[in-house]
């Protein structure tokens, strides 16, 4: 059979190309454009080459924000993943209470980011917030606007509150997919509860957990709204994470060149870490964990 040559088929791809061009390629290229030039008012541009990149790489400000960011993502992953698994393991497997738990746990996921920030901003206030007020009356010295540790604890607890459900829901889906026969076989083999978890549940959840880790990592690495609403990056620069720093630089100070260089490097870091994650995941899958 002869294949009919029909170049009109290209038109079918066109809408997608246009969409991607406007949503991703053109904005990204604009950033690239800014990052290699010095920009003044009235759209005056002067070629700067890699100057901004060099400057940013030698700037403690970006490195400190990156360190804080890695610490933040590390801590929330270390809490949310085990906690999510724990919640999923203890959820009712079927019936009314199972659906009830699922709905209850989905609620935080449905709340817009800035609302979550506002909730916790008020919740933690010493003068009117339920949490802040109670802690203060109990004699606990807690004030997230002045104390670095308190500010960190607040944004971490907030993130755990907001996102542990996601991990729990994914882990629950993984658990539900395990056929009953596995549990029955484990009973017959006299496996302990720990061994059932270690050799049946964990391996069967591994796929979804990897996705959960990847999602939570990327999301937390790009987090902006919630900590910004609660602490505004303070006290001082204590909770100024990468994206908060970036916005300060780009919109606060209007340093478009350095900010563009910063955001490209930020993008590359996320890309790199996600790629490493993905590669490790695929390899684990091949090797059988």
């Amino acid at each position, binding site marked *: 059979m002869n294949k009919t040559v029909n170049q009109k088929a290209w038109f079918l791809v066109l809408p997608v190309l246009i969409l991607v061009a406007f949503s991703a390629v053109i904005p990204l290229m604009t950033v690239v454009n800014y990052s290699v030039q010095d920009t003044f008012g009235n759209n005056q541009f002067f070629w700067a080459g890699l100057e901004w990149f060099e400057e940013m790489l030698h700037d403690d400000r970006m490195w400190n924000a990156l360190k804080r960011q890695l610490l933040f993502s590390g801590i929330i992953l270390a809490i949310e993943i085990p906690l999510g698994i724990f919640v999923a393991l203890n959820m009712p497997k079927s019936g009314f209470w199972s659906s009830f738990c699922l709905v209850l746990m989905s609620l935080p996921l449905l709340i817009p980011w800035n609302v979550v920030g506002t909730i916790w901003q008020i919740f933690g206030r010493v003068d009117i917030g339920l949490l802040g007020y109670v802690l203060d009356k109990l004699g606990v010295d807690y004030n997230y606007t002045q104390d670095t540790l308190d500010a960190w604890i607040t944004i971490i607890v907030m993130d755990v509150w907001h996102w542990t459900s996601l991990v729990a829901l994914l882990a629950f889906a993984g658990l539900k997919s395990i*056929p009953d*026969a*596995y549990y*029955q*076989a484990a*009973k*017959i*083999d*006299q*496996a*302990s509860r720990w*061994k059932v978890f270690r*050799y*049946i549940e964990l*391996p*069967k959840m591994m796929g979804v957990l990897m996705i959960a880790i990847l999602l939570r990592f990327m999301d937390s690495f790009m987090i902006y709204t919630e900590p910004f609403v609660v602490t505004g990056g303070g006290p001082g620069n204590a909770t100024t994470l990468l994206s908060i720093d970036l916005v300060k630089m780009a919109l606060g100070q209007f340093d478009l060149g350095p900010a563009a260089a910063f955001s490209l490097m930020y993008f590359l870091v996320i890309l790199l870490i996600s790629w490493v994650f993905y590669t490790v995941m695929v390899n684990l899958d091949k*090797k*059988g*964990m």
Partner: protein
Amino acid sequence: MAKITLDNLAHSYKPNPATEDDYALKELNHDWVDGEAYALLGSSGCGKSTLLNIISGLLTPSQGRILFDGKDVTNAPTAERNIAQVFQFPVVYDTMTVHDNLAFPLRNRGRDEAYVAERVNEIARMIGMEHMLKRKARGLGADEKQKISLGRGMVRKDVNALLFDEPLTVIDPHMKWELRTQLKKLHHEFGHTMIYVTHDQTEALTFADKVVVMYDGRVVQIGTPEELFERPEHTFVGYFIGSPGMNVIPARVEGSTAHVGGAEIALGQGYGALSGKVEIGIRPEFARLSQSEGLPVKVRRVEDVGRHKIIRADMFGQEINIIAGEDERISPDMNRVAFDPAQVNVYADDWRVKGAA
């Protein structure tokens, strides 16, 4: 190894069973003799898996008792019953090596490593997996995984019984044969009590010493493959076992003669007055197409299945099957069917009636 006794056992999945229909497993008394190989045969939903799960302790019966060597274990958990079970789909611990999979039940029971290693090697040799003991179970094929499941079931020497829940469903046909032969060999070697659930009559008849046929939550016959073939106690057994199944024809029985549509069929035995729905059953193997003797039939078609021919025919408006040998000639003027009188069974309300000679 143990004798397993079912005492007035019945099970319903409904909380308050009222009528007999509510029971997935109807009342049952039976002894599973120590060291025998049984097959539980029946179509889907007949209660055979329910019965198996009650024996293994995954399900507590709603009525009656179950005893292992006279000891009541009705409420004992699975772990205490010391049984092994192989499931329909292979259950292996993916992240462990084949060796660790086989060692798992022994290690969980705290056996020392020297003994574990010895048993694992022995079992690996039996299931032919010695060369892959070091491999991860993940990535093995379905039949290899099922072999591991079988091996894990047999690794403990002291199991009371080995239960199989349609273990060969996911296995390729040629491997089925091999695994079944292996199972049979293992049974001869070690003499475990084995209960093998299946809906495949070939599997049941080739594997078991005794076949337990279940129908609609009830055990309808327990017997050797030969008994099931020659003397089906229930029309379901006749219909379910054999290919094609037994011909069941409504009839009126008087003494040693059955009347079908005005014609007479000689029976090997005499019968008293029968009540209910009376039928006679003849296996196609014991029916013969003939020119001169027997009842008139109209041949619809002849199927040559290789080792014999199946003749589909009409007798007084009812379809009957006749099996003729591969070399037998069938001519258009053969329009009568004759039955071997000794092999004609009589049924009243689906249950076989014993005649008097």
